[in-house]
Each structure stands twice: as structure tokens, then as C-alpha cells.
């Protein structure tokens, strides 16, 4: 009556708990090393920052059965080609600005964040900008004066004044353009880019 079988004993489960935890963690570390090597800027999944010099699109890939970024010919941001170092500096300024302005507590970035405002993952490619040629200027004007250029689509939700400078706004646009070229395994699905609408 008093003997607990080994497989139900405290000491057995203590060992199981330790081995399971250690095993899972080691596996996670191995996977993390692998993932990190595959998502460095300049990898197949996450392009180099200088991708902002090129045309980016997002199309359905029948072979993979999902949407994929498509990197095309030259289309430099603000008509000024940047070196890799310049591009990285500009994207860095943009990324730091998105953090400093707390963008993620209204918007989502790669689908993570708050749901009060639209997802920014592919915002560079959004058909809302209508004309690819004028897109940078529209974005620049909007970021520098969001309430003045608000398009609320009838919701009444406006982006507040965040004091974004001209340089910061250019950085944010570079960051958004670079982000739209990341291979996100087909998220968002069924997204028709501004180029697709033009056709």
C-alpha cells in the first residue's frame, strides 16, 4: 500500500522535469542559431538594406503556393541610389523612429502590435498610394503632418502629431520599403499591391 511505483515517484518526475526542460532548451538554442543565420540582413529571407534602391513587389508564387516578395530593377528611394552603408544608416534611423514614436501600440509590424491602425508590413506596397511615382512624397507629407493628411475611411481614427522630422520621415519610409521585401512566408495572404492594381 505504501510503495509508489518508480514511474509515479517524486524523484523520477524530478529527473523527467530536468531532462525535458534541458532537452527543449538545447533544441531551441540549436534552432535559434540556425534561424539567426538565415535571417541576417542580406540573406535570402531578409534582404540587404540596399534593397531600397530597387523596385519591390509582392506576388503569388504558384510553385510555393503563397505570396512572395519580388525584387525588381532600379527604383531608388527619392531618386537617390544609396550605398549599403548609407542605406543601413537610413533604415536604422527609421527603425529607431518607429520605436521612439511608439508606432507598434496602434499599428502592427509583421502582424505584431496593436489593432487600432493598419498593419505596416506591406504598407510600402499598399494600393492606397495609387501612383508609385508620387508615393514617397505622399508618405513624407503624411508622416510630417498626420492629422492634416488624415484619411480615416470613415472611422474617425486619425494619427496624432508625433513631431516626426523630415529626416526621420525619410528613414521611416526607407524602413517600411525594406521591410516590405522580407519573405514572411506568405503573410499577408491575398494582398494586391499597388502595382497589381495598376495592371
Amino acid at each position, binding site marked *: 500500500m505504501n510503495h509508489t511505483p518508480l514511474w509515479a515517484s517524486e524523484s523520477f518526475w524530478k529527473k523527467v522535469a530536468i531532462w525535458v526542460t534541458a532537452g527543449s532548451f538545447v533544441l531551441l538554442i540549436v534552432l535559434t542559431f540556425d*534561424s539567426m543565420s538565415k535571417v541576417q540582413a542580406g540573406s535570402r529571407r531578409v534582404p540587404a538594406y540596399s534593397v531600397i534602391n530597387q523596385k519591390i513587389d509582392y506576388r503569388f508564387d504558384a510553385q510555393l503556393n503563397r505570396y512572395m516578395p519580388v525584387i525588381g530593377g532600379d527604383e531608388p528611394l527619392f531618386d537617390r541610389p544609396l550605398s549599403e552603408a548609407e542605406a543601413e544608416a537610413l533604415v536604422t534611423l527609421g527603425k529607431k523612429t518607429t520605436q521612439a514614436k511608439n508606432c*507598434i501600440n496602434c499599428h502592427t509590424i509583421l502582424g505584431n502590435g*496593436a489593432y*487600432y491602425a493598419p498593419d505596416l508590413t506591406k504598407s510600402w506596397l499598399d494600393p492606397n498610394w495609387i501612383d508609385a511615382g508620387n508615393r514617397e512624397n505622399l508618405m513624407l507629407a503624411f508622416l510630417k503632418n498626420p492629422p492634416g493628411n488624415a484619411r480615416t475611411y470613415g*472611422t474617425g481614427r486619425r494619427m496624432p502629431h508625433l513631431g516626426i*522630422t523630415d529626416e526621420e520621415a525619410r528613414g521611416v519610409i526607407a524602413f517600411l520599403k525594406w521591410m516590405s521585401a522580407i519573405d514572411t512566408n506568405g503573410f499577408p495572404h491575398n494582398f494586391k499591391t499597388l502595382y497589381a492594381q495598376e495592371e
Partner: protein
Amino acid sequence: MLNIAALSGKIQEAFGALDRHHLNGGQRLAVKYFAVAMILFLAQLLFGLLAAIQFVWPGFLFDLVDFSVNRMVHINAMVVWMLYGFIGSVYWFLEEESGTEIVGLKWGEIAFYVLTGAVVIVVLVYLLIQTGPGNDATRWLVNEGREYIEAPRWADIGIVTVMLVFFYNVAGTFAKGRWSGISGVLTLDLVALAGLYMAGMFYSTNVTVDQYWWWWVIHLWVEATWEVLVGCIMAWSLMKLIGARRRIVQTWLYIEVALMFGSGILGLGHHYFWIGTPDYWFTIGGFFSALEPVPLVAMVVHSIYDAGVHRFRSTNHPALGWIIAHTFGNFLGAGVWGFMHTLPQINLYTHGTQWSASHGHLSFFGAYATINIAFFYLAAQRWRGNVWMGGDLKDNGWKWKWSMILLNLGVMGMTVALLIAGYEQSFIERAVEGSTWGGYFAAQNQPWFVQAMLWRLVFGVVTLAGALLLTWDLLTIGAGETRLALVLEPEEELAAEPTVAVAK
């Protein structure tokens, strides 16, 4: 000008009023943590309410305290009050569990005031300064701008320092007194808790790398280390509350650790579907998502086993009631709501919609808020001098019963409203419109969505009413009660086990 010294004296005096001679040193410190936790809980609901109002009337407080600020304070207050609850609970049982006095109680006191002061400053900066220029100084001093861990870097370092003091007190006190299964698991879990926080303390321009490590903090805290921390607190509580036996409680704590960490650590994979990471995470995330309900199944079987074999006997009905709410809330919030949208085939559409908000509201409430509230009641009982809190309370216990009803109804109502909004959003915005901005706003304007947001606000008010009643009850329950609670001891017939220690 405010005299800072006089102010800090006044604050100390106010907290001093909470001291009771029935309490040991650790418990006196714990009561301070609980007091601040309750204040932050109310702050969480208040700012949640402001954000909910803005969903209905976007002009409300526009350009003054915007949605981003309210939502950030809402969630930060939640994270911090839960941590305060956990830290307080550990300080509460530290001396009894170790059989000795806390090694650095004075340091623990200082750490409490430092942490609380830092929290106040961070919140004031959030509210008054809000944002800064896009440079490193903003991230160090104002706002890091990463969801849930927005606290500026100086505060991160402060938090880690305070956690080290806490860790020193826990490990040192057990080392001086005695170790047990619970204390061993607890100590190792705290190492993981502090270590994982540091995974979120660096900057990366590469947004994929940024979010990869960000999830380490968020997921591995919430779905691994917090769960185990709660498991330790529950294990100890169940010995106190229903006289469960140590050997059995500890065996099940280990089983829980094995199940939790076994399914939870690699369950991290379900956050790596769409952030730029390789697609083998589909396989891993899918598998471990299917595994995550297993601990819940174990909980169901164990609860039935205990209910069938033993009769429950409790001298603290509110605490037991909240533990039962924990079981149900956790099962629905983490289990049902989690699994409904976790597989990549459907998550492609639900990712980044109100689905996540629905799941988040119920699972945080079910898994963590309930258990903290249960512990507050255990503490209130001892604070009053270990008085009776079982059946037939003076006023029939209407306050705890009604606060429990209102809180559960409020959270459940918000969850269902957000579920409807999320369903509609994943349908219209994601699937039909392909997640363009036009699609986003089309979904936001849909009558189902608009009405869901209104209902969410209504149930948010219900939740706040419940929390106010809860606060009132915690402050008054047991006052003037003269009957003493029996001290439970495991006995042949009545011993009961950690029905819910495997609840996650």
C-alpha cells in the same frame, strides 16, 4: 516645492499602517507588494477603459493621451501588477517554506521602494513625455517602443537589479534554512525569469531579429516561466488552503514543469510563422501547439480524481472560489481560445487581428489575474489574524461573491465581443480584402465590428465595477471577525491534492 524627505516619510508611514503583528517579516513586505499590485490592477482597467472608449469615439483625448499611450499603460500595468503579485506571494511564504528569517529583508524593503519609485517615474514619462526623437536617448530615457516591454533601458537595468535582490533573498534564505522541491523549482525558475528578460535588452535594426528575441521574452515569460512560478505559488497555497500533502504536491509540481516546459518552450514556434523566420517553424509550432492542451487534460483528470476521492474542506471560500475560476479561465482562455487560431493554416488570417486581443484578455485573466486574487485573499485572512473566511460570513460574503461574478462576467463579455470582432476582421480584412489599408478600414467599419467594440466597452465597465468591489472587499473582509480559522493538516480522509497545480 514638495519636500522629498517628508514625502518619502509619509509614504513609509502609509505602508507601515499595513503592518500587523501576526505577520512575519517577509509577509509584511509582501503586503506592500500586494497593495501596489491592487493599485496597478485598477490602473490597468482604467487605461484599458480609456483605450476602449477611443475605439468607439476616436476623438476622445485625441492628441492628448492617444490610444498608443493608453494601450501601453494598460498592458504595462498588467504585467507589473502580476509581477508584484508573484513577488509578494513568494515573500509571503518564503520564511515558512525555508523555516528561517529572510536573509536580506532590509534590502528587500529598499528594492521595493526603488522598484515602485521607478514604476511611478516610467508611467509619468509615458503619460507626460510620451515620445521622443528617433535616437538612442529616447530608447534609454523615454520609451523603448517595443510592445509590452516599452520600459526605457534605464528601467530595464533597474528591474534586473531589483530582481537580483529578490533572487538573493530567495536563494539565500532557502540556503540558510532548508530546501524543498518547491523552493528548488522556484529558485531555478527565477534564474530563467531574469535571464530571459535580458534577451529583450538590445537594439536591432533588423526587425526580424528584433521580433525573434522579443518573443523569447514575451512567450517564454508568459507561457513558460510565469506558469511555473504560479505552479510553485499554487503548490504552496494548496497545502495551506486544503491541506494537500507535500509529497504529492511536489510530485505534481515536477509533472507540471515537465508538461509545461516540454510543450511551452518549443511552443515558441507558433510565433515564428510570419516574421521572416524559416518555414520549418510551421512544423514545430504546429506540433507543440497540438501538445499544449495536454497539461489541461491532465488538470481535468486530476480535478475529477480529487473531487471523487476527497471531500474539500476550506476555511477560505473566496480564495478557493478564485482558484476554481482560475481552472475554468485557464482552460477556456489558453486551451480553447488558444487552439482555435494557432495553426498556421488559419493563423495566416487571424494573426494581428482582434482574435489575439480576445485570446489575450481571457487567458491572462484566467491564468494569472485569478491566481493573484486568490492569493490576496489568503493574505487578507492571515493579515486579519487568521480569521474564519469559510461559509456563513457576516454579510453573507456578498462583496466577494459579487465582485467575482462581475469580474468574470466582464472579462468573458469582453472576450466574446472581441472574438466576434476578430472573426469579422480575419474574414473581411484578411481573407477577402487581402490586408490592404482599405481592407483594414472596411473591416473596422463593419457593423458587427462596431457593435462588438461597443459591447467590449460595456463589459469593460462591468469589469471595473467588479475590481472596485474587489478592492473594497479585500480591505474589509474579516474585519471584526472573531472566529478563528482551523489550521488544516493533511489527514487520512481529508487530504486533498493540487487539483489545479497542473492547471496550465
